[in-house]
């Protein structure tokens, strides 16, 4: 077991505060120098969807926030079966997000010392 944090996002953006909190903790981990990996799974896949237009709503675009956070170097993965279930392809996601299958996801979860689920 390593000294890394895994953030597992299972809820979509905007319906609840969960996805926004995941981004906030991801930013905090990156800023604190914690080795962090984020996995988007289930409805959490929608957090990585490119082109979220929030201008008229008062909400902060979480895909834009994720894009900004990715510049800090954290690894962000999208669970491939969840993408397929939703008919979303990798090229529709924010650049830099990579896909993983169930086995790879299990390995990441197994290697992580801390797990935060949103």
């Amino acid at each position, binding site marked *: 077991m390593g000294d890394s944090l895994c953030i597992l996002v299972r809820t*979509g*953006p*905007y*319906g609840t505060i969960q996805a926004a909190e995941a981004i906030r903790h991801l930013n905090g981990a990156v800023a604190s120098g914690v080795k962090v990996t984020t996995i988007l799974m*289930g*409805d959490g896949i*929608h957090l990585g*969807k*490119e*082109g*979220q*237009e*929030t201008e*008229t*709503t008062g*909400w902060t675009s979480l*895909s834009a926030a994720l894009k900004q956070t990715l510049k800090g170097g954290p690894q962000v993965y999208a669970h491939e079966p969840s993408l397929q*279930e*939703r*008919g*979303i392809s990798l090229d*529709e996601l924010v650049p830099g997000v990579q896909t993983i299958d169930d086995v790879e996801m299990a390995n990441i979860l197994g290697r992580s010392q801390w797990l935060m689920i949103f």
Partner: protein
Amino acid sequence: MADDLLILISSPPNNPKALSALRLTQALRGEGRSISLCLLQDGVLLALARQATERILALTSEIKVYALGEDLKMRGFGRQEALPRVHLIEYDRLVDLMVDHRVMGAF
């Protein structure tokens, strides 16, 4: 007014609440009730053609199904990705619908 029913769905497609709402809508339609459906928040994902279920497809051909366009755009989707029979509306229109219908519940 009182005979025209409106069901709001704000939960995502795989959520049991959304599935219950769709079943309730179909049942009421089967009883011959005048009913409309409005999708908002995560519920707008039900309007996506790419993951449309047989149930929502059937409903869009039988009743008026509305979706909040703003909530769809927030999630990175637009008109071209929504089912053709779904009417994309703004908040003002949602308010009008809620005034003109008896709201059965928000799921």
